[in-house]
């Protein structure tokens, strides 16, 4: 069951990047139909992943994957430059998000839901 949950983590991160990419490239009405179909799947897989894994861990990976993925998109798909300074502050933000999410996890440990 645990392995399946990790597949959900990967899927939610991928679908997240698909709709973010879509937001930046959509030009026809049917592009938007596709994007609006992807978002519920993204949220569904996120919820499924959280069923068997700690929410803090799932969300921390999700946020980090989204940030790294969009940075790669900027550089490789949209030809926009990322300076060292920008990359550094992005890492700082992700570190804060991961810190918050993981500290929530430690607190709820041992507490019955």
């Amino acid at each position, binding site marked *: 069951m645990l392995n399946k949950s990790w597949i959900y983590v990967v899927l939610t991160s991928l679908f997240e990047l698909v709709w973010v990419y879509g937001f930046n490239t959509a030009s026809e009405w049917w592009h938007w139909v596709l994007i609006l179909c992807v*978002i519920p799947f993204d949220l569904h897989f996120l919820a499924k992943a959280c069923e068997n894994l700690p929410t803090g861990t799932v969300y921390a990976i999700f*946020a980090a994957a989204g940030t790294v993925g969009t940075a790669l998109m900027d550089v490789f798909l949209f030809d926009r430059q990322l300076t060292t300074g920008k990359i550094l502050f992005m890492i700082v*933000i992700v570190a804060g998000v991961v810190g918050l999410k993981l500290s*929530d996890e430690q*607190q709820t440990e041992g507490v019955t839901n």
Partner: protein
Amino acid sequence: MGWMYILLAAVFEVIGVLGLRLFSHARTVKNGVIYLGGLGGSFAFLYMAFLYLQISVAYAVFIGIGTAGAVLLNMIFFGESKSYFRMLSLIVIIIGVVGLKALS
């Protein structure tokens, strides 16, 4: 303008998360509207922000403010822990957001 939209997207995200919390406890129409309206507004403003800013910058700031906002709200209104580690993480996010703003 882009930064304004990101801020609004993050605010709506927090509303959506709050709505989800309410909706999972009591499935009423009102709670459903807060949940879906919050998320919908969040996506709409994120789209607007993408028109002005680099996607990676917009996305990182959106995730950072959204998460920090939700935690702050829970600390203030739901009496969640104000541990040093959580405070430190919040400050780290703020440093990251301010830094990106300064460079963009």
